[in-house]
């Protein structure tokens, strides 16, 4: 029986920030196709084509397309190979002499050049040519806003509120109103919380950088000094919890989630790659932000660690933090 605040919580939209490939338009390439007039030769032709013209660049493309017309006759078309300037129709014909009796004329069609990653892309792709589609359940859940259940959303909102509280402390101190909290999602234990101190004496002390250092402090190390007046927090791991030989022991920010009121910049986003964070939730977007706005560092090709990012969490409240600042 959801009360009013729960209703709000349930309607809270948490947007995944995915790699552009999941929202990209379906790219097409030209391919040579022929009509197959004698269906009994299908397997012979396919066997021949798979060695002569393997579709190794486009393994998701099905070779055969059957179309039923209104008078119930079926037309079968077969992809021969990708179109290229130095491969003319005549050249192809000359390689297909043993099939001249069963194929029609050769034409050019558009086929999807990469495998569809989402149902939407699949639906568009198949309008051009049949393709295989292996649905990634998690991506589907993320795209249909069904990844989080009600309880998850409540916890997420709770942690973001803690980050907002830190931002409010910063605001009182005339610092940038950006708050951050790092949580162990398995136990929901808060590992560290802080706010942005860049407008103090240290230009690198963005909320994320400080938070990552507080995590190091929780493991008995760390670098920067803080005063009690800062009102930062870090838990203190017990000796057996920080045993580096233990596989379960904390290692940097492995397995942790960061909640931050504003989208991190590129320095901070990369600091989180180095720190092996598992997930980031942020409230407000930033024009030069590196988790969706200017870059997508969390899914940057070439980097050896990726992490999940969600935005929109209590974003209105996070936006409001900036009114009458500075």
């Amino acid at each position, binding site marked *: 029986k959801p009360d009013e605040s729960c209703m709000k919580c349930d309607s809270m939209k948490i947007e995944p920030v995915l790699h552009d490939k999941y929202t990209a338009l379906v790219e097409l390439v030209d391919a040579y196709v022929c009509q197959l007039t004698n269906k009994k030769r299908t397997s012979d032709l396919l066997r021949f084509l798979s060695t002569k013209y393997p579709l190794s660049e486009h393994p998701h493309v099905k070779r055969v397309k059957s179309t039923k017309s209104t008078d119930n006759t079926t037309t079968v078309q077969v992809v021969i190979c990708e179109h290229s300037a130095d491969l003319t129709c005549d050249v192809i014909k000359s390689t297909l002499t043993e099939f001249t009796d069963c194929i029609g004329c050769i034409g050019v069609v558009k086929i999807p050049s990469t495998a569809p990653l989402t149902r939407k892309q699949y639906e568009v792709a198949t309008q051009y040519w049949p393709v295989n589609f292996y649905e990634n359940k998690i991506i589907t859940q993320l795209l249909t806003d069904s990844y989080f259940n009600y309880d998850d959303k409540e916890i997420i909102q709770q942690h973001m509120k803690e980050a907002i509280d830190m931002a409010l402390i910063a605001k009182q101190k005339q610092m940038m109103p950006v708050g951050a909290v790092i949580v162990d999602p398995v136990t929901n234990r808060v590992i560290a919380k802080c706010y942005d101190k860049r407008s103090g*004496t*240290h*230009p*690198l002390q963005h909320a994320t*950088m400080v938070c*990552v*250092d507080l*995590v*190091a402090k929780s*493991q*008995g*190390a*760390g*670098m920067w000094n803080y005063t009690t007046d800062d009102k930062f927090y870090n838990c203190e791991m017990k000796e057996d919890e920080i045993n*580096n*030989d*233990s*596989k*379960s*022991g904390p*290692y*940097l*920010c492995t397995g942790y989630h960061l909640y931050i009121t504003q989208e991190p*910049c*590129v*320095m*901070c986003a*990369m*600091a989180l*790659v*180095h*720190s*092996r964070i598992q997930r980031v939730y942020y409230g407000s977007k930033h*024009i*030069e932000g590196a988790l969706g706005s*200017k*870059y997508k*560092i969390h899914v*940057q090709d*070439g*980097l*050896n*660690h990726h992490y999940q990012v969600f935005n929109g969490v209590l974003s209105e409240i996070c936006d409001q933090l900036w009114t009458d600042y500075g």
Partner: protein
Amino acid sequence: MTVPQDKSSIDSWMLKSFEFAEEALTNNEVPVGCILVWKDKILATGRNEVNETKNATRHAEIVAIDKVLEYCEEHSEDKTKVFSEITLYVTVEPCIMCAAALRSVGVSKVVYGCKNERFGGCGSVLNIHTDTLHQLGPSFQCVDDVMADEAVQLLKTFYKGENTNAPDGKRKIKDNNC
């Protein structure tokens, strides 16, 4: 101040950076070292200290920036002015994080050794040094390929060894930051 065009002077500063890269190696850290030169003198030095601090952001450049900030605080120097007059000599191309950090403090000249194919922010993975980022800070120039072979050699020595701080033995080579 411009980057000295005299190759021997560049090399001699870079040689100094290697001392700190080697110190990192001795301490079982990814061997990257740097110096920050201001008014023809070394203002600050840095080397990777990720394992020691359990803070993956403690790259040579960040460590050195911290020292400059301390210096400016102690000597009442204008940090923005000091950084703008600094040249960084670092044995490996700054990573994306460090390139952004360098912009945010306003370092304008960077000389580096070898490319950082895995994390490089000055051309290898991204172009943080020149991308349009008005709020981050001014863009900076890079001089690359200064004693690159020596830098690569040091990295190879490290990756052949072990990183005892990684909890999972299998992760040691793949996961080490530099």
